Protein backbone atom coordinates (compact mmCIF):
# COMPACT_ATOMS: atom_id res chain seq x y z
CA UNK A 1 0.00 0.00 0.00
CA UNK A 2 1.17 3.44 -0.76
CA UNK A 3 1.48 6.07 1.93
CA UNK A 4 0.97 8.88 -0.56
CA UNK A 5 -2.35 9.44 -2.31
CA UNK A 6 -3.41 12.15 -4.74
CA UNK A 7 -6.91 12.80 -6.04
CA UNK A 8 -9.81 15.10 -6.76
CA UNK A 9 -11.72 16.32 -3.72
CA UNK A 10 -15.31 15.77 -2.66
CA UNK A 11 -16.05 18.09 0.23
CA UNK A 12 -18.24 16.86 3.09
CA UNK A 13 -19.15 18.62 6.32
CA UNK A 14 -18.88 18.00 10.09
CA UNK A 15 -20.16 14.90 11.92
CA UNK A 16 -20.60 12.64 8.89
CA UNK A 17 -21.73 9.53 10.78
CA UNK A 18 -21.35 5.81 10.16
CA UNK A 19 -25.11 5.33 9.81
CA UNK A 20 -25.24 7.45 6.65
CA UNK A 21 -22.08 5.76 5.34
CA UNK A 22 -23.52 2.30 6.07
CA UNK A 23 -27.22 2.19 7.02
CA UNK A 24 -28.18 -0.79 9.17
CA UNK A 25 -30.49 -2.43 6.61
CA UNK A 26 -27.65 -2.47 4.06
CA UNK A 27 -25.04 -4.11 6.27
CA UNK A 28 -25.63 -7.67 5.11
CA UNK A 29 -26.30 -6.80 1.43
CA UNK A 30 -23.80 -7.13 -1.41
CA UNK A 31 -22.19 -3.77 -2.16
CA UNK A 32 -24.07 -3.10 -5.40
CA UNK A 33 -27.35 -3.39 -3.51
CA UNK A 34 -26.08 -1.11 -0.72
CA UNK A 35 -24.95 1.62 -3.08
CA UNK A 36 -28.24 3.44 -3.70
CA UNK A 37 -28.90 3.80 0.03
CA UNK A 38 -25.56 5.30 1.05
CA UNK A 39 -25.20 9.00 1.96
CA UNK A 40 -28.89 9.93 1.65
CA UNK A 41 -27.87 13.56 2.20
CA UNK A 42 -25.33 13.53 -0.67
CA UNK A 43 -26.74 11.51 -3.59
CA UNK A 44 -24.57 13.57 -5.97
CA UNK A 45 -21.45 12.23 -4.24
CA UNK A 46 -22.50 8.59 -4.55
CA UNK A 47 -23.52 9.10 -8.19
CA UNK A 48 -20.45 11.09 -9.20
CA UNK A 49 -17.50 9.72 -7.22
CA UNK A 50 -14.76 8.23 -9.41
CA UNK A 51 -12.03 5.74 -8.47
CA UNK A 52 -9.10 7.63 -6.95
CA UNK A 53 -11.14 10.57 -5.64
CA UNK A 54 -10.54 11.90 -2.13
CA UNK A 55 -12.85 13.17 0.59
CA UNK A 56 -12.07 16.29 2.56
CA UNK A 57 -14.33 16.47 5.60
CA UNK A 58 -14.87 18.54 8.71
CA UNK A 59 -14.83 17.53 12.36
CA UNK A 60 -15.66 14.07 13.72
CA UNK A 61 -15.79 12.23 10.39
CA UNK A 62 -17.03 8.68 10.96
CA UNK A 63 -18.57 9.33 14.36
CA UNK A 64 -20.81 6.57 15.66
CA UNK A 65 -20.75 2.84 15.19
CA UNK A 66 -17.93 0.28 15.04
CA UNK A 67 -19.31 -1.13 11.75
CA UNK A 68 -16.49 -1.64 9.28
CA UNK A 69 -18.87 -1.33 6.37
CA UNK A 70 -18.49 2.47 6.81
CA UNK A 71 -14.87 2.67 5.58
CA UNK A 72 -15.43 -0.40 3.41
CA UNK A 73 -18.23 1.34 1.51
CA UNK A 74 -16.05 4.42 0.91
CA UNK A 75 -13.34 2.22 -0.49
CA UNK A 76 -15.78 0.27 -2.67
CA UNK A 77 -17.16 3.56 -3.99
CA UNK A 78 -13.61 4.20 -5.19
CA UNK A 79 -12.49 6.71 -2.55
CA UNK A 80 -8.69 6.54 -2.31
CA UNK A 81 -8.33 8.46 0.94
CA UNK A 82 -9.86 10.89 3.41
CA UNK A 83 -8.46 14.03 5.02
CA UNK A 84 -10.62 15.36 7.85
CA UNK A 85 -10.33 17.92 10.63
CA UNK A 86 -10.81 14.98 13.04
CA UNK A 87 -12.27 11.46 13.11
CA UNK A 88 -14.55 9.31 15.18
CA UNK A 89 -11.97 7.12 16.90
CA UNK A 90 -13.38 3.70 16.03
CA UNK A 91 -13.83 4.65 12.38
CA UNK A 92 -10.20 5.80 12.31
CA UNK A 93 -8.93 2.60 13.93
CA UNK A 94 -10.92 0.59 11.39
CA UNK A 95 -9.25 2.56 8.58
CA UNK A 96 -5.80 1.75 9.95
CA UNK A 97 -6.72 -1.93 10.32
CA UNK A 98 -7.94 -1.94 6.71
CA UNK A 99 -4.90 0.01 5.43
CA UNK A 100 -7.21 2.76 4.15
CA UNK A 101 -5.40 6.13 4.03
CA UNK A 102 -7.20 8.52 6.38
CA UNK A 103 -5.38 11.48 7.87
CA UNK A 104 -6.49 13.96 10.53
CA UNK A 105 -5.37 17.43 9.45
CA UNK A 106 -6.61 20.45 11.40
CA UNK A 107 -7.24 23.34 9.04
CA UNK A 108 -7.88 21.25 5.93
CA UNK A 109 -11.59 21.98 5.56
CA UNK A 110 -11.36 25.72 4.92
CA UNK A 111 -8.26 25.16 2.77
CA UNK A 112 -10.10 23.12 0.09
CA UNK A 113 -12.96 23.48 -2.33
CA UNK A 114 -14.74 20.67 -4.08
CA UNK A 115 -12.86 19.57 -7.18
CA UNK A 116 -9.43 20.68 -5.90
CA UNK A 117 -6.49 18.36 -6.45
CA UNK A 118 -5.08 17.27 -3.07
CA UNK A 119 -2.21 14.99 -2.06
CA UNK A 120 -1.82 13.40 1.38
CA UNK A 121 1.24 11.63 2.75
CA UNK A 122 0.66 9.36 5.76
CA UNK A 123 4.42 9.02 6.34
CA UNK A 124 5.23 12.73 6.61
CA UNK A 125 1.78 14.07 7.48
CA UNK A 126 2.02 16.62 4.70
CA UNK A 127 -1.23 17.55 2.97
CA UNK A 128 -0.88 19.61 -0.20
CA UNK A 129 -3.64 21.37 -2.07
CA UNK A 130 -2.08 21.42 -5.54
CA UNK A 131 -4.88 23.55 -6.98
CA UNK A 132 -4.33 26.35 -4.45
CA UNK A 133 -0.66 25.75 -3.78
CA UNK A 134 -1.21 25.37 -0.04
CA UNK A 135 0.57 22.92 2.24
CA UNK A 136 -0.56 21.83 5.72
CA UNK A 137 1.25 19.75 8.34
CA UNK A 138 -0.71 16.96 10.04
CA UNK A 139 0.46 14.40 12.59
CA UNK A 140 1.72 11.48 10.45
CA UNK A 141 0.77 7.86 11.01
CA UNK A 142 2.92 6.17 13.66
CA UNK A 143 5.47 3.50 12.80
CA UNK A 144 3.06 0.78 13.96
CA UNK A 145 0.26 2.14 11.76
CA UNK A 146 2.61 2.40 8.78
CA UNK A 147 3.67 -1.21 9.32
CA UNK A 148 -0.01 -2.23 9.10
CA UNK A 149 -0.35 -0.11 5.94
CA UNK A 150 2.71 -1.69 4.35
CA UNK A 151 1.46 -5.19 5.13
CA UNK A 152 -1.85 -4.33 3.47
CA UNK A 153 -3.90 -4.49 6.67
CA UNK A 154 -3.99 -5.91 10.18
CA UNK A 155 -5.15 -9.37 9.04
CA UNK A 156 -2.01 -9.69 6.94
CA UNK A 157 0.07 -8.60 9.96
CA UNK A 158 -1.66 -11.36 11.92
CA UNK A 159 -1.08 -13.94 9.18
CA UNK A 160 2.65 -13.11 9.15
CA UNK A 161 2.84 -13.21 12.93
CA UNK A 162 1.18 -16.62 13.04
CA UNK A 163 3.47 -17.91 10.31
CA UNK A 164 6.53 -16.65 12.22
CA UNK A 165 5.32 -18.44 15.36
CA UNK A 166 4.61 -21.58 13.41
CA UNK A 167 1.12 -21.52 14.86
CA UNK A 168 -0.68 -20.86 11.64
CA UNK A 169 -0.46 -21.70 7.97
CA UNK A 170 2.95 -21.05 6.44
CA UNK A 171 3.01 -18.02 4.15
Amino acid at each position, binding site marked *: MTARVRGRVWKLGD*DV*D*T*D*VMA*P*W*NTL*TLPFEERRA*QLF*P*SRPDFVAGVKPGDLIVAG*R*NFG*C*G*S*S*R*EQAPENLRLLGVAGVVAE*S*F*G*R*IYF*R*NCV*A*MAFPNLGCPGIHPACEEGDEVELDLRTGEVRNLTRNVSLAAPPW*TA*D*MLAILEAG*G*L*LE*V*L*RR*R*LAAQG*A*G*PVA
Partner: protein
Amino acid sequence: MGLTLAEKILARASGRAAVVPGEYVTARADKVMCHEAFVLCALQLAKLGVTRLFDPERVIVILDHYFPAPTERMAGAHAAAREFVKRFGITHFLGHAGICHQVLTERALVRPGELVFGTDSHSTTYGAVAAAGNGIGVTETTYLLATGELWMRVPPTLRFALEGELPAGVMSKDVALHLAGRFGTAVASYRAIEFAGPAADAMSLASRMTLANMGAELGAKFAFFAADEATARTLSERAGEPVAPFGPDPDARYEATHRIDVGGLEPQIACPHNPGNVKPVSAVAGTPVQQCFLGSCTNARLEDLAVAAEILRGRRVHPSTRLLVTPASHEVALEATRAGILETLLEAGAHVTASGCGACPGGHGGVLGAGEACLSSTNRNFRGRMGSADAQVYLGSPASVAAAALTGRIVDPRDYWAGRM
Protein backbone atom coordinates in the same frame (compact mmCIF):
# COMPACT_ATOMS: atom_id res chain seq x y z
CA MET B 1 2.68 12.29 39.71
CA GLY B 2 -0.76 10.72 40.04
CA LEU B 3 -2.54 8.87 37.28
CA THR B 4 -6.03 9.15 35.84
CA LEU B 5 -8.13 5.98 35.47
CA ALA B 6 -7.16 5.72 31.78
CA GLU B 7 -3.45 6.07 32.63
CA LYS B 8 -3.61 3.57 35.49
CA ILE B 9 -5.34 0.94 33.42
CA LEU B 10 -3.26 1.37 30.26
CA ALA B 11 -0.02 1.40 32.29
CA ARG B 12 -0.93 -1.90 33.92
CA ALA B 13 -2.20 -3.42 30.67
CA SER B 14 1.01 -2.52 28.87
CA GLY B 15 3.34 -3.62 31.67
CA ARG B 16 4.61 -0.17 32.61
CA ALA B 17 4.82 1.75 35.87
CA ALA B 18 3.28 4.83 34.31
CA VAL B 19 2.19 6.22 30.96
CA VAL B 20 1.59 9.76 29.75
CA PRO B 21 -1.09 11.10 27.40
CA GLY B 22 -0.10 10.91 23.75
CA GLU B 23 2.11 7.86 24.27
CA TYR B 24 1.41 4.76 22.15
CA VAL B 25 1.45 1.39 23.91
CA THR B 26 0.66 -2.22 23.13
CA ALA B 27 -2.00 -3.15 25.64
CA ARG B 28 -3.24 -6.59 26.69
CA ALA B 29 -6.98 -7.08 26.99
CA ASP B 30 -8.57 -8.26 30.22
CA LYS B 31 -11.87 -9.02 28.47
CA VAL B 32 -13.12 -9.09 24.90
CA MET B 33 -16.87 -8.76 24.38
CA CYS B 34 -18.31 -9.90 21.04
CA HIS B 35 -21.89 -9.68 19.84
CA GLU B 36 -22.96 -11.12 16.46
CA ALA B 37 -19.80 -9.61 14.90
CA PHE B 38 -18.09 -12.61 16.52
CA VAL B 39 -19.16 -14.73 13.55
CA LEU B 40 -17.26 -12.50 11.12
CA CYS B 41 -14.18 -12.63 13.37
CA ALA B 42 -14.41 -16.41 13.75
CA LEU B 43 -14.67 -16.90 9.98
CA GLN B 44 -11.49 -14.86 9.53
CA LEU B 45 -9.70 -16.79 12.27
CA ALA B 46 -10.74 -20.08 10.70
CA LYS B 47 -9.41 -18.88 7.35
CA LEU B 48 -6.09 -18.00 9.00
CA GLY B 49 -5.87 -21.44 10.57
CA VAL B 50 -6.21 -20.13 14.15
CA THR B 51 -7.49 -22.91 16.40
CA ARG B 52 -6.81 -21.36 19.81
CA LEU B 53 -7.83 -17.93 21.08
CA PHE B 54 -5.43 -15.91 23.23
CA ASP B 55 -7.50 -16.85 26.28
CA PRO B 56 -10.98 -18.34 25.81
CA GLU B 57 -11.86 -17.48 29.43
CA ARG B 58 -11.45 -13.77 28.73
CA VAL B 59 -13.78 -13.80 25.75
CA ILE B 60 -17.51 -13.19 26.14
CA VAL B 61 -20.00 -13.85 23.34
CA ILE B 62 -23.61 -12.69 23.41
CA LEU B 63 -26.27 -12.44 20.71
CA ASP B 64 -28.21 -9.20 21.06
CA HIS B 65 -28.26 -7.11 17.89
CA TYR B 66 -30.43 -9.51 15.90
CA PHE B 67 -32.36 -11.31 18.63
CA PRO B 68 -34.87 -12.84 18.13
CA ALA B 69 -33.54 -13.52 14.64
CA PRO B 70 -35.45 -11.27 12.20
CA THR B 71 -34.29 -13.17 9.10
CA GLU B 72 -33.33 -16.67 8.10
CA ARG B 73 -29.81 -15.43 7.42
CA MET B 74 -29.44 -14.16 11.00
CA ALA B 75 -30.81 -17.37 12.44
CA GLY B 76 -28.00 -19.05 10.52
CA ALA B 77 -25.45 -16.58 11.89
CA HIS B 78 -26.62 -17.32 15.44
CA ALA B 79 -26.20 -21.04 14.81
CA ALA B 80 -22.71 -20.41 13.43
CA ALA B 81 -21.86 -18.34 16.53
CA ARG B 82 -22.86 -21.20 18.83
CA GLU B 83 -20.76 -23.62 16.80
CA PHE B 84 -17.66 -21.36 16.91
CA VAL B 85 -18.15 -20.82 20.66
CA LYS B 86 -17.87 -24.57 21.13
CA ARG B 87 -14.97 -24.95 18.75
CA PHE B 88 -12.93 -22.25 20.50
CA GLY B 89 -13.90 -23.40 23.99
CA ILE B 90 -15.31 -20.01 25.00
CA THR B 91 -16.56 -20.26 28.57
CA HIS B 92 -18.67 -17.09 28.73
CA PHE B 93 -21.36 -17.62 26.13
CA LEU B 94 -24.34 -15.61 27.32
CA GLY B 95 -26.77 -16.68 24.60
CA HIS B 96 -29.55 -14.12 24.29
CA ALA B 97 -29.66 -12.85 27.86
CA GLY B 98 -30.16 -9.28 26.71
CA ILE B 99 -28.09 -6.33 25.54
CA CYS B 100 -24.36 -6.98 25.90
CA HIS B 101 -23.40 -3.99 28.07
CA GLN B 102 -26.28 -4.55 30.47
CA VAL B 103 -25.67 -8.27 30.87
CA LEU B 104 -21.90 -8.02 31.33
CA THR B 105 -22.41 -5.41 34.03
CA GLU B 106 -25.27 -7.14 35.84
CA ARG B 107 -23.27 -10.38 35.95
CA ALA B 108 -20.10 -8.55 37.07
CA LEU B 109 -18.18 -9.97 34.10
CA VAL B 110 -16.38 -6.64 33.80
CA ARG B 111 -14.54 -5.39 36.87
CA PRO B 112 -13.02 -2.11 38.03
CA GLY B 113 -9.59 -1.50 36.51
CA GLU B 114 -10.00 -3.87 33.59
CA LEU B 115 -9.25 -3.06 29.95
CA VAL B 116 -12.27 -4.26 27.99
CA PHE B 117 -12.62 -4.24 24.22
CA GLY B 118 -16.03 -4.75 22.63
CA THR B 119 -17.31 -5.10 19.07
CA ASP B 120 -19.68 -2.27 19.87
CA SER B 121 -19.21 1.48 20.08
CA HIS B 122 -21.16 1.71 23.33
CA SER B 123 -18.58 -0.39 25.17
CA THR B 124 -17.80 2.87 26.99
CA THR B 125 -20.68 1.77 29.27
CA TYR B 126 -18.23 -0.37 31.29
CA GLY B 127 -16.70 2.90 32.50
CA ALA B 128 -19.61 3.05 34.95
CA VAL B 129 -17.73 0.42 36.98
CA ALA B 130 -14.32 2.02 36.29
CA ALA B 131 -13.44 -0.45 33.53
CA ALA B 132 -11.76 0.91 30.41
CA GLY B 133 -14.43 -0.17 27.93
CA ASN B 134 -13.94 0.82 24.32
CA GLY B 135 -15.33 -0.19 20.95
CA ILE B 136 -13.42 -1.67 18.01
CA GLY B 137 -14.29 -3.15 14.62
CA VAL B 138 -14.24 -6.69 13.31
CA THR B 139 -10.68 -6.69 11.93
CA GLU B 140 -9.14 -5.44 15.17
CA THR B 141 -11.27 -7.87 17.17
CA THR B 142 -10.04 -10.73 14.99
CA TYR B 143 -6.44 -9.73 15.70
CA LEU B 144 -7.23 -9.31 19.39
CA LEU B 145 -8.91 -12.71 19.72
CA ALA B 146 -5.79 -14.35 18.30
CA THR B 147 -3.13 -12.30 20.10
CA GLY B 148 -4.77 -10.64 23.13
CA GLU B 149 -3.24 -7.27 22.35
CA LEU B 150 -3.75 -4.05 20.39
CA TRP B 151 -2.06 -0.69 19.99
CA MET B 152 -3.57 2.09 22.06
CA ARG B 153 -2.87 5.79 22.33
CA VAL B 154 -2.92 6.94 25.94
CA PRO B 155 -5.67 9.57 26.01
CA PRO B 156 -5.68 12.82 27.93
CA THR B 157 -8.62 12.92 30.34
CA LEU B 158 -11.41 15.47 30.65
CA ARG B 159 -13.06 15.71 34.04
CA PHE B 160 -16.74 16.61 34.20
CA ALA B 161 -17.49 17.66 37.77
CA LEU B 162 -21.26 17.42 38.19
CA GLU B 163 -22.17 19.85 40.96
CA GLY B 164 -25.46 20.31 42.77
CA GLU B 165 -28.41 17.94 42.87
CA LEU B 166 -30.47 16.68 39.92
CA PRO B 167 -33.90 18.34 40.12
CA ALA B 168 -37.11 16.31 40.32
CA GLY B 169 -38.10 14.85 36.94
CA VAL B 170 -34.59 15.14 35.51
CA MET B 171 -32.48 12.04 34.81
CA SER B 172 -28.85 11.24 34.03
CA LYS B 173 -29.81 11.03 30.35
CA ASP B 174 -30.69 14.72 30.49
CA VAL B 175 -27.20 15.42 31.81
CA ALA B 176 -25.65 13.43 28.95
CA LEU B 177 -27.71 15.25 26.33
CA HIS B 178 -26.96 18.61 27.94
CA LEU B 179 -23.22 17.88 27.73
CA ALA B 180 -23.51 16.82 24.06
CA GLY B 181 -25.42 20.00 23.26
CA ARG B 182 -23.21 22.33 25.24
CA PHE B 183 -19.77 20.89 24.44
CA GLY B 184 -20.45 19.10 21.15
CA THR B 185 -20.20 15.46 20.15
CA ALA B 186 -16.46 15.71 19.52
CA VAL B 187 -15.49 17.28 22.87
CA ALA B 188 -13.83 14.06 24.04
CA SER B 189 -12.41 12.92 20.68
CA TYR B 190 -9.25 10.85 21.30
CA ARG B 191 -9.82 11.50 25.01
CA ALA B 192 -11.11 9.80 28.14
CA ILE B 193 -13.78 11.26 30.41
CA GLU B 194 -14.06 11.00 34.18
CA PHE B 195 -17.42 11.95 35.68
CA ALA B 196 -17.13 13.16 39.27
CA GLY B 197 -18.73 15.53 41.75
CA PRO B 198 -21.66 15.24 44.14
CA ALA B 199 -24.32 14.66 41.46
CA ALA B 200 -22.24 11.83 39.97
CA ASP B 201 -21.64 10.33 43.42
CA ALA B 202 -25.38 10.40 44.10
CA MET B 203 -26.27 8.48 40.92
CA SER B 204 -27.31 4.83 40.96
CA LEU B 205 -25.15 2.43 38.99
CA ALA B 206 -27.89 2.28 36.33
CA SER B 207 -27.85 6.08 35.94
CA ARG B 208 -24.05 6.06 35.74
CA MET B 209 -24.24 3.45 32.99
CA THR B 210 -26.43 5.82 30.96
CA LEU B 211 -23.84 8.61 31.17
CA ALA B 212 -20.88 6.31 30.49
CA ASN B 213 -22.80 4.85 27.54
CA MET B 214 -23.44 8.33 26.13
CA GLY B 215 -19.72 9.03 26.48
CA ALA B 216 -19.57 7.52 22.98
CA GLU B 217 -21.76 10.43 21.86
CA LEU B 218 -19.21 12.85 23.30
CA GLY B 219 -16.53 11.16 21.18
CA ALA B 220 -14.82 9.49 24.14
CA LYS B 221 -12.50 6.49 24.09
CA PHE B 222 -13.41 5.71 27.72
CA ALA B 223 -16.07 7.33 29.95
CA PHE B 224 -15.42 6.55 33.61
CA PHE B 225 -16.92 6.86 37.02
CA ALA B 226 -14.74 5.84 39.95
CA ALA B 227 -15.87 2.49 41.37
CA ASP B 228 -16.85 3.75 44.82
CA GLU B 229 -17.95 1.75 47.88
CA ALA B 230 -21.51 1.46 46.55
CA THR B 231 -20.36 0.11 43.17
CA ALA B 232 -17.90 -2.27 44.82
CA ARG B 233 -20.67 -3.57 47.09
CA THR B 234 -23.07 -4.10 44.16
CA LEU B 235 -20.42 -5.88 42.09
CA SER B 236 -19.37 -8.02 45.05
CA GLU B 237 -22.96 -9.18 45.50
CA ARG B 238 -23.32 -9.93 41.81
CA ALA B 239 -19.93 -11.64 41.54
CA GLY B 240 -20.26 -13.64 44.75
CA GLU B 241 -16.73 -12.59 45.70
CA PRO B 242 -15.15 -9.39 47.00
CA VAL B 243 -14.65 -6.59 44.43
CA ALA B 244 -12.57 -3.64 45.61
CA PRO B 245 -13.22 0.05 44.91
CA PHE B 246 -11.01 1.61 42.24
CA GLY B 247 -10.48 5.25 41.37
CA PRO B 248 -8.03 7.74 39.91
CA ASP B 249 -5.12 9.00 42.01
CA PRO B 250 -6.10 12.10 44.01
CA ASP B 251 -3.31 14.06 42.31
CA ALA B 252 -4.13 12.83 38.77
CA ARG B 253 -3.65 15.42 36.05
CA TYR B 254 -6.54 16.35 33.77
CA GLU B 255 -6.45 18.13 30.46
CA ALA B 256 -9.41 20.20 31.64
CA THR B 257 -12.07 20.15 34.33
CA HIS B 258 -15.55 21.30 33.39
CA ARG B 259 -17.82 22.16 36.33
CA ILE B 260 -21.49 21.66 35.53
CA ASP B 261 -24.21 22.72 37.95
CA VAL B 262 -27.00 20.24 37.27
CA GLY B 263 -29.29 21.83 39.87
CA GLY B 264 -31.05 24.03 37.32
CA LEU B 265 -31.21 21.53 34.49
CA GLU B 266 -34.50 20.98 32.66
CA PRO B 267 -35.24 17.83 30.64
CA GLN B 268 -33.29 17.81 27.36
CA ILE B 269 -34.21 16.56 23.89
CA ALA B 270 -31.79 15.82 21.04
CA CYS B 271 -33.41 16.77 17.74
CA PRO B 272 -32.78 15.22 14.30
CA HIS B 273 -30.22 14.24 13.05
CA ASN B 274 -27.44 14.42 15.63
CA PRO B 275 -27.15 13.68 19.37
CA GLY B 276 -25.53 17.09 19.78
CA ASN B 277 -28.53 18.97 18.35
CA VAL B 278 -29.97 19.39 21.84
CA LYS B 279 -32.72 21.72 23.07
CA PRO B 280 -34.49 22.06 26.40
CA VAL B 281 -37.80 20.20 26.24
CA SER B 282 -39.74 23.48 26.40
CA ALA B 283 -38.31 24.43 22.97
CA VAL B 284 -39.72 21.37 21.21
CA ALA B 285 -42.84 20.68 23.30
CA GLY B 286 -45.86 19.92 21.13
CA THR B 287 -43.97 17.98 18.43
CA PRO B 288 -46.14 14.95 17.48
CA VAL B 289 -44.47 11.52 17.65
CA GLN B 290 -45.96 8.38 16.16
CA GLN B 291 -43.64 6.07 18.12
CA CYS B 292 -42.18 6.19 21.62
CA PHE B 293 -39.33 3.76 22.25
CA LEU B 294 -38.07 2.78 25.68
CA GLY B 295 -35.13 0.51 25.04
CA SER B 296 -31.38 0.09 24.34
CA CYS B 297 -28.15 -0.15 26.33
CA THR B 298 -28.64 3.53 27.18
CA ASN B 299 -31.94 3.55 29.05
CA ALA B 300 -33.96 0.36 29.54
CA ARG B 301 -32.89 -0.73 33.01
CA LEU B 302 -35.19 -1.39 35.94
CA GLU B 303 -35.14 2.22 37.17
CA ASP B 304 -35.98 3.48 33.66
CA LEU B 305 -38.94 1.14 33.33
CA ALA B 306 -40.05 2.03 36.86
CA VAL B 307 -40.14 5.74 36.02
CA ALA B 308 -42.19 5.02 32.90
CA ALA B 309 -44.61 2.89 34.93
CA GLU B 310 -44.96 5.67 37.49
CA ILE B 311 -45.93 8.09 34.73
CA LEU B 312 -48.30 5.68 32.97
CA ARG B 313 -49.96 4.08 36.02
CA GLY B 314 -53.73 4.17 35.62
CA ARG B 315 -53.44 6.07 32.32
CA ARG B 316 -53.46 5.10 28.64
CA VAL B 317 -50.99 5.50 25.81
CA HIS B 318 -52.43 8.16 23.45
CA PRO B 319 -54.11 6.61 20.38
CA SER B 320 -52.01 8.72 17.99
CA THR B 321 -48.80 6.99 19.08
CA ARG B 322 -47.41 3.63 20.19
CA LEU B 323 -45.09 2.78 23.06
CA LEU B 324 -42.55 0.00 22.56
CA VAL B 325 -40.70 -1.24 25.63
CA THR B 326 -37.61 -3.41 25.19
CA PRO B 327 -36.13 -4.26 28.60
CA ALA B 328 -32.32 -4.12 28.52
CA SER B 329 -31.98 -7.73 29.59
CA HIS B 330 -34.00 -10.80 30.40
CA GLU B 331 -33.07 -10.24 34.05
CA VAL B 332 -34.45 -6.69 33.88
CA ALA B 333 -37.65 -8.03 32.28
CA LEU B 334 -38.01 -10.60 35.04
CA GLU B 335 -37.42 -8.06 37.83
CA ALA B 336 -39.81 -5.62 36.17
CA THR B 337 -42.41 -8.37 36.00
CA ARG B 338 -41.99 -9.26 39.67
CA ALA B 339 -42.28 -5.58 40.62
CA GLY B 340 -45.51 -5.18 38.63
CA ILE B 341 -43.85 -2.64 36.34
CA LEU B 342 -44.52 -4.52 33.11
CA GLU B 343 -48.11 -5.11 34.15
CA THR B 344 -48.60 -1.38 34.64
CA LEU B 345 -47.02 -0.64 31.25
CA LEU B 346 -49.07 -3.31 29.49
CA GLU B 347 -52.27 -2.04 31.14
CA ALA B 348 -51.45 1.39 29.77
CA GLY B 349 -51.23 -0.07 26.28
CA ALA B 350 -47.45 -0.45 25.89
CA HIS B 351 -46.01 -3.27 23.79
CA VAL B 352 -43.22 -5.20 25.48
CA THR B 353 -40.66 -6.94 23.25
CA ALA B 354 -37.88 -9.47 23.87
CA SER B 355 -34.64 -8.02 25.24
CA GLY B 356 -32.05 -7.02 22.66
CA CYS B 357 -30.98 -4.03 20.58
CA GLY B 358 -34.22 -4.16 18.58
CA ALA B 359 -35.41 -0.85 17.22
CA CYS B 360 -32.39 1.25 18.32
CA PRO B 361 -30.20 0.69 15.24
CA GLY B 362 -33.20 0.21 12.94
CA GLY B 363 -32.87 -3.55 12.96
CA HIS B 364 -36.28 -4.89 13.88
CA GLY B 365 -39.07 -4.52 16.39
CA GLY B 366 -39.94 -0.89 15.72
CA VAL B 367 -38.38 0.29 12.45
CA LEU B 368 -39.64 3.75 11.40
CA GLY B 369 -41.29 4.55 8.09
CA ALA B 370 -40.85 7.70 5.97
CA GLY B 371 -42.38 10.77 7.57
CA GLU B 372 -42.69 9.20 11.02
CA ALA B 373 -41.25 10.75 14.17
CA CYS B 374 -40.10 8.89 17.28
CA LEU B 375 -39.04 9.96 20.75
CA SER B 376 -36.51 7.38 21.84
CA SER B 377 -34.57 6.68 25.02
CA THR B 378 -31.63 5.48 22.88
CA ASN B 379 -28.28 7.05 22.10
CA ARG B 380 -28.20 8.06 18.42
CA ASN B 381 -30.54 9.89 16.09
CA PHE B 382 -28.41 9.98 12.96
CA ARG B 383 -30.38 10.22 9.75
CA GLY B 384 -31.83 6.80 8.94
CA ARG B 385 -30.70 5.37 12.28
CA MET B 386 -34.04 3.74 13.15
CA GLY B 387 -35.24 3.00 9.63
CA SER B 388 -36.24 5.43 6.89
CA ALA B 389 -33.83 8.25 6.01
CA ASP B 390 -36.99 10.39 5.99
CA ALA B 391 -37.93 9.60 9.60
CA GLN B 392 -37.24 12.00 12.49
CA VAL B 393 -35.66 10.60 15.65
CA TYR B 394 -35.63 12.61 18.88
CA LEU B 395 -33.72 11.43 21.95
CA GLY B 396 -34.80 11.93 25.53
CA SER B 397 -34.95 10.41 28.99
CA PRO B 398 -37.23 7.49 29.87
CA ALA B 399 -39.48 10.00 31.67
CA SER B 400 -39.74 12.12 28.52
CA VAL B 401 -40.53 9.01 26.45
CA ALA B 402 -43.29 7.90 28.84
CA ALA B 403 -44.81 11.39 28.96
CA ALA B 404 -44.80 11.56 25.15
CA ALA B 405 -46.55 8.18 25.04
CA LEU B 406 -49.34 9.62 27.20
CA THR B 407 -49.92 12.63 25.00
CA GLY B 408 -48.67 11.63 21.53
CA ARG B 409 -46.41 14.68 21.64
CA ILE B 410 -43.11 15.69 23.14
CA VAL B 411 -44.01 17.27 26.49
CA ASP B 412 -42.29 18.25 29.71
CA PRO B 413 -42.23 15.03 31.79
CA ARG B 414 -42.23 17.08 34.99
CA ASP B 415 -45.94 17.72 34.39
CA TYR B 416 -46.46 13.98 34.95
CA TRP B 417 -43.65 12.96 37.27
CA ALA B 418 -42.20 14.83 40.21
CA GLY B 419 -39.96 12.01 41.38
CA ARG B 420 -36.21 11.93 41.78
CA MET B 421 -33.77 9.32 40.71
